[in-house]
């Protein structure tokens, strides 16, 4: 009983953060309970009544194996995970023609088609980043049906808009007639919900929402990046804070799907000092569970996507959402403090989405950032030569760097052409960050730190 009250309280808290008007519109309703045996928690889409599991399966980080010299998805592992997920109540699967070098949809189709179609919702996207012509876009749309072995999409998204503002949106969806095409498809029932996924500045978001407000396009749902760091620390300049996006969507009663609840896994592996504080509060709960509980605490959230790579995070997530416990106001404040502390670490805000790849000069951009971030959070990071363990830390960093990244793909080979900049959903100044990391490496090698 008490916990149910919490939901109301935190809901009210979120309202205060959002808009006062929120109280009078229907919210995605929480079905299920956090007591007794494990039971998946569902949120109801207020528009069409879909009962969506609060945790969704993101199909962007599936395991890859080497086969005939090529990197391919480990279908067997995917099948096992999908079966387990469905068995435990997960019913929302989010993929894209762009994920995993274009292999994600087919693997999702292979795994999902082994289950009755009404047991799950499929979300996929129009990822026309390259060829934006009408023909290529329509082909991409049709191919998705084939790959996913379905004749309708539950949720269909305009993939990653925001950056470049309305101009980019027009180029990708308006000028080539795709938005009209998709709206017709929606009428025909082949798209049940049409929405977009967003990365960008607040103004850019406002422009897209304006289309909704003035009746041009009705957004059935919206996918945003949200977690306790991005809530108020998304930078504000390059990318909008999640707090703002959430409030704007909730105000309009647009169901929200969350991406990057873990910042590409970075919120599952936080610096030791922060992990310690979390474990002091919840010794038996995983670090990642805090991030998921954060997302689930907000009533406007219909589904939080997790890009699960293997069974371990999947089982942990099912534990988190099977006995879901929203955060209290005090706990929300605690996470805000943790986020502030995290900002003090010199981390790169990379979520390992690999949209920047391939770098035309062969640099392993996400690999370099991931290695750097992991080293910083795990304390394998020398700060001065005076440090007691300097030699050891230096060796650990340099050896692990060479292990993680082949010499030819390391940061010193970045020529700064800037090709990657427009692709990064996080608006990371990639060449600048690579240079910063390379300076650090040079300082280590030359002992000038």
């Amino acid at each position: 009983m008490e916990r149910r009250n919490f939901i109301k309280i935190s809901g009210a808290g979120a309202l205060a953060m959002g808009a006062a008007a929120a109280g009078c519109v229907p919210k995605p309703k929480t079905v299920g309970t956090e007591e007794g045996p494990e039971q998946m928690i569902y949120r109801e889409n207020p528009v069409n009544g879909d009962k969506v599991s609060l945790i969704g399966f993101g199909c962007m980080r599936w395991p890859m194996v080497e086969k005939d010299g090529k990197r391919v998805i480990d279908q067997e592992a995917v099948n096992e995970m999908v079966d387990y997920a469905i068995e435990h109540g997960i019913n929302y699967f989010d993929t894209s023609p762009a994920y995993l070098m274009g292999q994600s949809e087919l693997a999702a189709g292979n795994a999902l088609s082994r289950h009755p179609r009404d047991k799950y919702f499929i979300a996929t996207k129009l990822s026309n980043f390259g060829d934006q012509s009408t023909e290529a876009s329509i082909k991409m749309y049709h191919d998705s049906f084939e790959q996913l072995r379905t004749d309708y999409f539950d949720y269909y998204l305009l993939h990653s808009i925001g950056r470049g503002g309305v101009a980019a949106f027009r180029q990708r969806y308006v000028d080539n007639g795709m938005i009209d095409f998709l709206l017709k498809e929606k009428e025909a029932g082949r798209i049940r919900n049409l929405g977009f996924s967003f990365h960008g500045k607040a103004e850019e978001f406002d422009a897209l929402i304006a289309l909704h407000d003035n009746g041009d396009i009705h957004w059935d749902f919206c996918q945003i990046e949200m977690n306790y760091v991005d809530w108020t620390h998304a930078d504000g300049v390059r990318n909008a804070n999640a707090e703002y996006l959430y409030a704007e969507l909730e105000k309009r009663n647009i169901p929200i799907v969350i991406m990057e609840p873990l910042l590409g896994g970075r919120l599952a592996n936080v610096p030791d000092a922060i992990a310690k504080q979390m474990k002091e509060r919840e010794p038996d709960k995983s670090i990642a569970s805090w991030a998921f509980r954060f997302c689930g605490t907000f009533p406007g959230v219909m589904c939080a996507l997790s890009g699960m790579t293997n069974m371990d995070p999947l089982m942990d997530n099912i534990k988190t959402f099977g006995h879901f416990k929203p955060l209290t106001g005090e706990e929300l404040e605690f996470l805000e403090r943790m986020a502030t502390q995290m900002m003090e670490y010199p981390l790169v805000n990379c979520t390992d989405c690999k949209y920047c790849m391939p770098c035309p000069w062969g640099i392993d951009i996400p690999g370099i950032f991931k290695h750097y971030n992991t080293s910083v959070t795990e304390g394998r990071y020398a700060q001065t030569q005076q440090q007691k363990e300097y030699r050891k830390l230096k060796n650990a960093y340099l050896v692990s760097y060479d292990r993680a990244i082949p010499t030819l793909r390391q940061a010193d080979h970045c020529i700064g052409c800037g090709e990657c900049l427009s692709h990064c959903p996080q608006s990371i100044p990639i060449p600048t960050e690579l240079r910063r990391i390379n300076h650090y490496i040079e300082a280590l090698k030359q002992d000038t730190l």
Partner: protein
Amino acid sequence: MLKKIRVALAVVFWLGITLLFLDFTGALHGWLGWMAKVQFLPAVLALNVAVIIGLVLLTLLFGRVYCSVICPLGVFQDGVAHLNVARKRRKKDRKPYGYSPEMKWLRYGVWVLFVIALIAGVQALVALLAPYSAWGRIVQNLFQPVYLWVNNLFAALAERADSYAFYSKEVWLRSLPTFIVAAVTLVVVVVLAWKNGRTYCNTICPVGTTLSFFSRFAMFRPVIDKAKCKDCKMCEHNCKAACIDIADHKIDYSRCVDCFNCIDTCKFGALKYRYAWGKVHPKQSEVTADSSAAPQNDSGRRAFLTGAALAVGGATLKAQEKKMDGGFAAILDKEVPERDVPITPPGSESVRDFYRRCTACQLCVAECPNNVLRPSTDLKHLMQPEMSYERGYCRPECTRCSELCPAGAIRKITKEEKTQYHIGTARVNRTLCVAEEGVECGNCARHCPSGAIQMVEDEATGFKHPVVNEALCIGCGACENLCPSRPISAITVNGRHQHLNEE
């Protein structure tokens, strides 16, 4: 007892030097570097008077113990010979060797040739004949790859265990001609040692011949006591130098390497290692043509070994290429650009000085952590190292080759002194530069440790391209290595004859 001491010291020296060649981490050279520095030929080339006098005195005192203890190739041959002797013993053959007269014409002929080569600067011939260089070549080319593969296996295991105790190191064929020479040297030395013990040391090895001039007059040497000798010839049959002639009760001290096998074998106590200063050394027998000791060419086997060696080399290259991941843009391997003057390491005063002193022992090649040094394929400097920057560049903080070189070809320098050495100058080939296509690059300028490269605007195109201030450039190759143009870099380093500015 003497033999035991000799064997123990020999094993220590041999392991030490071999490890010095195998080690790529730089961890051992502080401890073992001196073992390379007391080798005879490097000391001669380094004009290391103390070591030369020390070795000559050692030989005058105790005979050619250098050959039995300090020389790694000598000790290696003893090991090979021992295996065959042990095999023969199992077959009840207790007479593995016999006396053979000195092959003067071959021995001194080779020595004269060697000295001429040394003076004339035909270093390839010097390196081919010198025992220490031969051993270095064999270890670096044939044994170090195996050592690295084992290391890489450990590194893979360490990676799994999240340990940084081992790191993997790329294995690559640095020079095919040198690899083949090393393989042939190994085969020849093994065959000779297996069949006749110290044939190489007493007919070919110029260091052995040089020391033999002194060992004839050694103060301490094995002496036969005719009164006690029963002419059983056991000592003669166990002398791997074939220098004991029991018929005349004489020992050829110019060939005796003081292995003390004879003393251990004699059951009658007729052989003693003792003070014998000033005793007339035995007369040499007449030279007789004896072809049995000459190297025998087993051409079929050699062809097989060379073939196998080539196959191994090929496999190495292929394994490296397989690292490509489908998710990445392909990267072409860099090719060696044309250089008018070869690049030799900082610490060498000039190219000429470097190649005159270098014994081509490959110690610096085995040590170089940046994959810069490799044996030259140029006939003039065959097997002697040169630098190239396809796999890495000469990093500012590294002075490892200079700390090791026993021949003085690379002087010991500090990190700070390194910047004084102007080993080459970068030059730009604008037709290859990506900046000419309007790509904003400047990676060469960004990474130049001496600030010698600047980006200047071309008035016609408005694009920036690199220019080199040759006064600041030191030739480290950072620009060449990090240039995005492949397979040939748009900015390449040409060597300089003189490395130190006369100031």
